[in-house]
C-alpha cells in the first residue's frame, strides 16, 4: 500500500534522472565529436598554441615570447605525446569510450595556460563564485519577476502597458551590455561600486568583516545586472499566464459567485505560478549563457571568465572541461527543480499513476 502511494513520483524522478544522464552523455559526445568534425588538425593547433601562446579570438591576445626556444624536434615530440595522450592512435570507438572513461573518473585533462594544473581543479575553484552569483540572482529574479508580472496582469490598463513595455525592453537587453552601462554609471560615474573582480586586488579571501564588505561591494553590480535581465523574462511569462487564468471560465464563475478580489487573484496566482516553475528550469540554460558573458565583462572569477580566458589562449582542454562541468551543474539543478515540481504539482503524480 505504502509503495503504491509513493511510486508514481518516484517513477517520474527515475525517468528524469535517466534523461539527464543521457543528456550528459550527449554533451560529452559533442565534446568528442566537434574537434573531429572540424577542418584542420586540433592537435597541431594545440601544439602551436602551447608553443606560441596564440589565441583563437583572432586578436592575437596572450603571451608569446617563448617561440625561439622550441625546435621542430620538440614540436614533433609534443605532437606525438598529445596524439598518444588523447588516444588518437586508437580506433574511433575506443577513443570515444576512453573519453567517457576519463570524464567519469573525473579526469578532464590538463590546462594549457595554467600548466600543470588539472582542468577539474581550475574549474572547481571557479565554480563556487559562479554558483554564488547564479543561484541568488536567479531566485531573486524569479520571485520579483513573478510578483511584478502578476501585478501587471491584475492592474490592467495603463500600469500594465507601462510595465509590459519595461519588461519587454529589459528582457531583450544583452546581459553584458547592461553590465557595461552599470559599470559606466555606478562604478565609473558615481564611484559607488568597484568595476571588476570579486574582491580587491591583493586581498586574500577570508571570513573577516572587512572582506565580506569588500566582497559584497564587488558582488552588487554583477548581481544586479543578472537579476534585472532575468526578471524581465520571468515577469513577461507570469503576466501572460495570469491573464490566461484571469480570463478563464472558472474565474468568471468565481467572480459571479461574488468571491473577493483577493481570493480571485490568489487562485489565479497559484495556477499561473506552476508553469513558471518549469519555466525557471528551462531558462536555466539561457541564464547560464548570460552569466558566462557577464562574468567576462566584470572579470568575475567564475567558470564563465575561465572559459573566456581559455578561448583567448586556445586552451581547448579548459574550454571543454568548463563546458562539461557547467553542463553537469545545469543538469543537476534541473533535476532538483524536477524534484520540487513533483512535490508541488499533484498532477505529475496523477499522470504517472494513470500510466501504470
Amino acid at each position, binding site marked *: 500500500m505504502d509503495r503504491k502511494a509513493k511510486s508514481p513520483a518516484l517513477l517520474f524522478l527515475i525517468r528524469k534522472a535517466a*534523461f*539527464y544522464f*543521457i*543528456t550528459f552523455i*550527449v*554533451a560529452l559526445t*559533442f*565534446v568528442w565529436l*566537434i*574537434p573531429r568534425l*572540424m577542418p*584542420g588538425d*586540433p592537435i597541431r*593547433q594545440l601544439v602551436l598554441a602551447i608553443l606560441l601562446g596564440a*589565441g*583563437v*579570438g*583572432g*586578436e592575437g591576445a596572450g603571451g608569446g615570447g617563448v617561440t625561439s626556444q622550441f625546435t621542430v624536434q620538440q614540436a614533433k615530440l609534443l605532437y606525438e605525446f598529445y596524439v598518444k595522450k588523447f588516444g588518437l592512435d586508437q580506433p574511433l570507438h575506443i577513443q570515444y569510450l576512453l573519453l567517457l572513461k576519463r570524464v567519469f573518473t573525473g579526469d578532464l585533462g590538463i590546462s594549457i595556460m595554467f600548466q600543470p594544473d588539472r582542468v577539474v581543479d581550475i574549474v572547481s575553484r571557479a565554480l563556487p563564485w559562479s554558483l554564488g552569483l547564479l543561484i541568488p540572482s536567479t531566485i531573486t529574479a524569479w520571485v520579483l519577476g513573478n510578483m511584478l508580472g502578476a501585478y501587471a496582469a491584475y492592474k*490592467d490598463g495603463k500600469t500594465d502597458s507601462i510595465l509590459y513595455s519595461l519588461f*519587454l525592453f529589459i528582457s*531583450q*537587453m*544583452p*546581459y*553584458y*551590455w*547592461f553590465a*557595461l*552601462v552599470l*559599470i*559606466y554609471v555606478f*562604478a*565609473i560615474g558615481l564611484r559607488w561600486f568597484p*568595476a571588476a573582480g570579486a574582491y580587491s586586488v591583493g586581498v586574500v579571501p577570508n571570513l573577516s568583516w572587512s572582506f565580506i564588505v569588500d566582497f559584497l561591494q564587488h558582488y552588487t553590480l554583477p548581481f544586479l545586472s543578472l537579476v534585472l535581465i532575468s526578471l524581465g523574462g520571468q515577469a513577461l511569462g507570469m503576466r*501572460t499566464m495570469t*491573464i*490566461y487564468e484571469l*480570463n478563464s471560465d472558472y474565474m468568471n464563475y468565481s467572480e459571479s459567485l461574488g468571491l473577493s478580489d483577493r481570493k480571485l487573484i490568489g487562485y489565479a496566482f497559484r495556477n499561473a505560478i506552476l508553469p513558471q516553475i518549469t519555466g525557471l528550469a528551462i531558462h536555466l*540554460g*539561457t541564464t*547560464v*549563457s*548570460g552569466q*558566462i*558573458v557577464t562574468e567576462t*565583462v566584470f572579470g568575475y572569477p567564475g567558470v564563465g571568465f575561465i*572559459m*573566456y580566458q581559455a*578561448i*583567448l589562449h586556445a586552451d*581547448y582542454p579548459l*574550454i*571543454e572541461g568548463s*563546458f562539461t562541468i*557547467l*553542463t553537469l551543474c*545545469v*543538469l543537476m539543478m*534541473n533535476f532538483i527543480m524536477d524534484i520540487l515540481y513533483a512535490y508541488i504539482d499533484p498532477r505529475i503524480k496523477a499522470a504517472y499513476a494513470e500510466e501504470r
Partner: protein
Amino acid sequence: MTGLIGYLKVIAQYRKLLIGLTLLIGLLVFSIPGMFFYHIDPRSLEFKDLQPPSPTNPLGTDVFGRDVLAQLIHGTYNSFRIGVFAGLLATLIGILVGSVAGYTGGTIDEALNLITNTFLVLPTLALLIVIASYIRIRNEFVMIIIIGSTAWPWTARAIRAQVYSLKAREFVDLARISGLPKLEIIFLEILPNMLSYIVMCFTLQMAGAILSEAGLSAIGLGPTALVTLGMMLRWAIIWEAPRIGAWWWFIPPGILITLIAVSFLLINSGLDEIYNPRLRRGR
C-alpha cells in the same frame, strides 16, 4: 488593393503588432538606405580616435578612429542578416523535427523528442563556444550555421505540439483516407494550416539569433572580419569603453540590439493576440 487595405486595418487594430512593425521598418530604413546616404566606411581609420559626437562624426569615433555611426549602420544590417538567416535555418530544422515527431508519433516521436529536450537543457552559449573555438576564420556563413543549428529545439517543441493537435482534425483524416503519402500530409495539409504559428516561431528565432550573435561576439567568437553590433560591443569591452567614458561608443549598439529583438517580440505577441483571442484585453 482592398486586400492590402484590409490587412492594414487589421494591423492598425493591434497596437503591439503596429509598434513592432513600425520599429522593425524604422531599423531597416536606418541601416539599408542609411548605407547609401552615409558614405563613411565603417572600417576606415581616417579619424582621430575617441572623439565625442561632433558634426563630422555624429556619434563620435572609437579607439581606432573609426566612425561609430557608420559602424552602427553597417552593423545593424549585418546583425539583421545573420539574425534572419540563422533564424530561418533554426525555424526550418525546428519545423522538420517537430512536424515529423508530432505526426508520426511512436518511437520516432520519442527519439526526436529526446533529442529536442536534450538540446533544450544544454547551456547553448557554452556549446556554441566549444564549436566556435575550433573555427579560426568565422565568416557570416559560419555564424549562421552554428547559431541556426543550435537554436532549433524551441521551435521543434512548439511545432510538435501544434502538429499533434492538428493531426486529429477531420481534414487530416480525409487526406489520410484518400491515401496521400505521409510527407505530403505534413507539408501540404498540416503545415499550411499553422503558417501563422510558424511565422511567430520565426520572429522569436530571429530575435534569439541576433542576441546569440551578440553574445558570441562579446567573448571573442564573433565573425572575424565583419562589422556587427555584437563585434562593436566586443571592441568596447576589450578597450574598456565605460572606463574611458566613451558612452557614444558602447551605448548605441546595445540599444540597437535591444530594439531589434524587441521589435520581433512585439510582432510575435501582436500576432499571438490576433490568433489567440484569450490574450486580448481592452484595446
